[in-house]
């Protein structure tokens, strides 16, 4: 369907503009993209894709929504193994090593070689570029990048006698403030929790990375073969998650990623830790006064960088690579990136985007959008290694077993480290 519509648009656009399509090579692009947040993301991606197709009537592009991040990676890799890879896809930044090992992507720095291209690549925030680079080459272009931020209900803060303009900044404050925010009904059942940190699955592991960064450590390095799961910082981070539940500030058991924004909107919790990519969803649906702050930290502020990058696949012709690069340039251009950022809340990945009048007006209207950008200097790359899915699973199991009360932090993390080392020893 999408394909037909795009084709129709590009044909009609070609007819209108009287472009002689024969002079240019005509490419059919397939573009896989995931949606990881509660936002009308599919519609925005489709609009942007259609615009590029209208501007480039010789080409066609079909934007294929492929589920959440992990499903999209699975789908793209399966298609690539079957010899039918998409030309371009937005996939998790942390899947870099998997994609390199599977030998399915091309370094974009090998395609974008002109001086103009190099200048373009240098125009992104370095923090977002770093996790797309390996062995001196740039494999990925930042698109839907984010850090988690602390969303809080200002009305709930006022009701609890707290200052709505100063959210907690440390773990200690988080627990104190959280206690004041937790409300119970006549039966002693909690009607409003102090906070909610997703602790299940990949989303849980992502936020856990932020806790570790705030304890002045990292889970991983740029080598792709190092997992630092069993350190004083990780143990302290996991103990903090347990403490939140033990102090009655956060619901015991595991918290899912997907339900977290809903729980906030429904007033089940007075604050949440979730992606800045949920900003638009919260803004649209919140029926109360809300604010955004840095994630409360252990020793200082700290957050993981997350989200998705553009990748170009290997199984492509010269012409397709050129077209794909042009498409990526369009999608990350100030005008497109501004629209994407405003529609979702993702951090626009280039400083020039923030200078557009649209973004200026947006930040004026919604100053909360600036918090993730301001937090960026305190953020580190998300956990990524070779065989990322397998290695992260050890971390996920450790976090889940502790928050569900089936293991102790130190023991669980030691076990995770052993598992990760056994996988990564093959690469050393």
């Amino acid at each position, binding site marked *: 369907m999408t394909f037909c519509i795009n084709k129709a648009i590009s044909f009609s656009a070609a007819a209108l503009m009287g472009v002689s399509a024969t002079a240019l090579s005509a490419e059919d692009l397939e573009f896989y993209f995931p949606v990881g947040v509660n936002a009308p993301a599919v519609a925005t991606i489709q609009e942007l894709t259609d615009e590029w197709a209208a501007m480039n009537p010789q080409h066609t592009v079909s934007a294929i929504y492929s589920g959440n991040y*992990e499903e999209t990676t*699975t789908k793209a890799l399966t298609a690539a193994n079957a010899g039918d890879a998409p030309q371009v896809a937005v996939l998790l930044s942390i899947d870099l090593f998997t994609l390199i090992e599977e030998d399915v992507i091309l370094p974009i720095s090998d395609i974008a070689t002109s001086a103009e291209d190099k200048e373009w690549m240098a125009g992104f925030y370095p923090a977002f570029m770093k996790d797309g680079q390996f062995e001196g080459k740039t494999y990925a272009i930042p698109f839907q990048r984010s850090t988690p931020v602390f969303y809080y209900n200002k009305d709930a803060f006022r009701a609890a006698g707290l200052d709505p303009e100063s959210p907690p900044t440390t773990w200690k404050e988080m627990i104190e403030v959280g206690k004041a925010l937790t409300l119970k009904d006549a039966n002693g*059942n909690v009607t409003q929790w102090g906070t909610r940190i997703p602790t*299940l699955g990949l989303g849980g592991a992502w936020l856990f990375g932020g806790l570790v960064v705030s304890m002045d450590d990292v889970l991983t390095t740029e080598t792709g073969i190092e997992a630092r799961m069993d350190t004083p910082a990780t143990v302290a981070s996991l103990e903090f998650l347990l403490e939140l539940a033990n102090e009655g500030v956060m*619901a015991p058991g595991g918290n899912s990623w997907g339900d977290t924004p809903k729980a906030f909107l429904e007033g089940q919790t007075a604050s949440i830790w979730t992606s800045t990519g949920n900003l638009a969803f919260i803004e649209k649906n919140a029926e109360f006064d809300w604010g955004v702050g840095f994630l409360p930290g252990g020793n200082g502020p700290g957050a993981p960088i997350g989200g998705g990058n553009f990748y170009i696949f290997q199984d492509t012709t010269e012409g397709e690579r050129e077209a794909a690069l042009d498409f990526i340039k369009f999608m990350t251009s100030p005008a497109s990136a501004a629209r994407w950022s405003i529609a979702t809340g993702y951090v626009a990945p280039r400083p020039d985007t923030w200078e557009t009048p649209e973004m200026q007006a947006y930040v004026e209207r919604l100053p909360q959008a600036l918090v993730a950008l301001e937090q960026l200097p305190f953020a580190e790359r998300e956990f990524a290694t070779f*065989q990322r*899915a397998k290695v992260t699973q050890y971390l996920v*199991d450790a976090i889940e077993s502790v928050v569900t009360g089936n293991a102790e932090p130190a023991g669980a993390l030691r076990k995770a480290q052993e598992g990760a080392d056994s996988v990564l020893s093959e690469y050393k």
Partner: protein
Amino acid sequence: MNKRMTTAPAIIMLVIPCAILVAFTHYPAIMALINSFWNNASSRRPSRFAGTENYQAMLADDRLAQVLVNSTIYALGTVPLAIGLAIGMALLVNSRLPGTAFMRLSFFLPTMLPMIAVANIWLFFYAPGIGLASQILGIFGLPSINFLGQTETALGSMMFVAIWKEAGLFMIFYLAALQSVPTNLKDAAKLEGAGRIRVFIDVVLPLLRPTTIFVAVNALINAFRLVDHVVVMTEGGPNNASALLLYYIYEVTFRQRDFAYGATLTVLMVVLLGILAVIQFWLLNRKAHYQ
């Protein structure tokens, strides 16, 4: 019309089903067996013969042990409960109570919905605090339960969904079986002074036995085959509390891209299902006839 068929057309006719059987059943099974003796090669790890390494890894795999326990609990829990519920519903809609047409429809409705849709609906029911289940608990002054976020309740919550989904289909089989129970047998039993419960236990239930075996076989197959709701609702979590064998195979093979270990797990599953099939056929042959 008694002309004997020559061998040639017989062979042609057999080739197509045989080719399909080989292409989609035997070839993949044999390839899985072969792959299970190799390592998981990639551009950065050369391919090599691994011998029984994958099988040794399987024996030492804590997650697999947990998954097998889960699968056993899941099968032993869902199959009898779904059958019991199906018999109950079939008796209800087979009675002369008013509104049986509506009841039949509503009991059968879950079966008609795709599992992915069902899982999404239940995801909302189970959501702590905001979900239907929590709202109902709230009416009685009970605290909300994080059904899918606790290791104690996650598997049970999945089983509940499966039973709710499956029982309607089995009800149809039982309804057909109930309607074919000869009334003269029941009348004869009543003449002998048997009460309604006695008639059910001694006359109706034995006649339902072939249906029960058929349904049990199908339910057991589904217990291994259906994992859509696991993917949608918990992704096997928390801490693998709701991971089932087929889901684990999917995760290892396609998410973690460990095709060698995935093949090893597939061999395990084929062997397990083979053993179950042998037991069931043996039961079918022994217990399903009443001449």
